[in-house]
């Protein structure tokens, strides 16, 4: 399912491009990875050990629901890291992995 962002489209600004599961998406400078993902779509950002859909939640580093693989490193708190041009993001599925990669849908 493709779900539209749950947030209003922002006025255009300079863009930073990252890839999310191989798809190029635009973010704005200063966005955290979690914010960029929420702005991009309302889709799940992660699936838990039981397969439940989750997205970033507290946005302040408390809840760890925004865990995401960043440039091959798993379990990064998406709300605590800023986007950088060319960043490679992958959504995590299942139990939190010890090593990155191999989690493509």
């Amino acid at each position, binding site marked *: 399912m493709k779900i539209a962002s*749950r947030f209003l489209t922002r*006025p255009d600004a300079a863009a930073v491009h990252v890839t999310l599961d191989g798809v190029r998406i635009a973010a704005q400078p200063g966005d955290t990875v979690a914010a960029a993902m*929420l702005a991009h779509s309302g889709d799940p950002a992660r699936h838990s050990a039981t397969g439940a*859909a*989750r997205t970033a*939640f*507290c946005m302040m*580093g408390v809840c760890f629901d925004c865990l995401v693989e960043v440039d091959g490193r798993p*379990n990064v708190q998406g709300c605590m890291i800023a986007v950088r041009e060319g960043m490679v993001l992958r959504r995590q599925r299942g139990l939190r992995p010890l090593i990155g990669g191999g989690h493509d849908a």
Partner: protein
Amino acid sequence: MMHDADVIIVGAGPAGMAAAATAARAGAQVLLLDEQPRAGGQIFRNVGVNGDARTYLGKDYVAGKPLVDALDHPNITAEYGATVWRIEAGPRVIWSREGESRMSCAPHILLAGGAQERPVPFPGWTLPGVMPAGATQILMKTAGLLPRDAVLAGSGPLLYLIAAQMIDAGAPPRALVETQTIASMLRAAPQLPRALLAARMLIKGLGFIRKIRAAGVARYTGASGFRAAMTEDGGIAFSFLAKGKAHQLNTPILLTHQGVVPATHMSRAAGIVHSWTDVQRAFQPAVDTWGRTDVPGIHVAGDGAGIGGAEAAQAAGRLAALDILHLQGLLSEDARNQKSAPDRAMLRRALAIRPFLDTAYAPLAEFLSPPDAAIACRCEEVTAGDIRQSIQEGANGLRQVKTATRAGMGPCQGRMCDLTVRGILSSCGAKPATPRARSPIKPIRLGELAALATQQETSA
């Protein structure tokens, strides 16, 4: 032991920033650590860079700018993106940045870690599209992201503020679902005369409510029985009862709020004595009027020592700084006491409204001890029902529930479920002790730990 500063302040929110400026101006060397990329805390998040943009955030938000500016002082070294994961006697702080840990020592540590939103567990609260209202406010402040056709649900002053900010930003919520009841307002009424000391805040709150009315936002009061399900298009079907009637609202994003609670992982892991407060329904560290704790060398100030809001936090931060200056020999006892007068008055004024707010907007029992189907521990996906079953099977405290169910064993280390597990235990007649917190209080990689050990050996 080599000292890196006279005082290490953990947290660059209102309390930490105010304390840093006070200490630095009096000649103390300050090391200020914050996990976020810049100063401000959650309330003044990004205030230093937003400038004239995002005016919908309001005057009280911009008021945080001077606090950030005051950090530009030669005696202050500020480190951002710095995650503290251990505080130890000495005192010593171990913190991590970009995968590397370091140790900093000082004769004094001031913990100013602030608050977190109280978890609001109900069936469906883990679904994409359900978020804490404060989290959306962070998105407004840091990314200019405005929720689309949101439903705000819960209670408390922050909920009204966020609704007003959304209206001013041109993204009004489609409905405001309030959990406070006429009974809770009546219970709070005797506190109103005292709250008049904080008349400015009361007037501000009434202004928000007027704005929400004028914008024609649908309002439901006395709401309970929260439940969220996913609709076919990925939205949220939010159902609840209001005044005995069942309602359902469909929205892309449901924003909940039941107030904030002290973030105590750091202070608990530091070994400071904590207790439960019935008024604020939270754990808080025991501190004296200067923020001193029972652990020598460690003070706590601001919302992390008990919820009082940004103004109270600034005053408390300065009071702690004055006490630390006194303990460092930079200020006599008389000078400390004299200089503290304006902040004592500010603190008294700011705290005057709390008993009213804490009573009128108390969290609903259904969020303190949620129904069986609600997930309590988001990390390990443990439901309230699982926890009740473990209690029936003999678990009689937080540690036994943890062992039986894994609640609290995920990466958030209980930050999202400690209060819920406690609430369920106490509704089952138990008297749970303060939960333990242990270092590392934020997950770090083993390699980082090993590198730190090597560094320690070489320097020893």
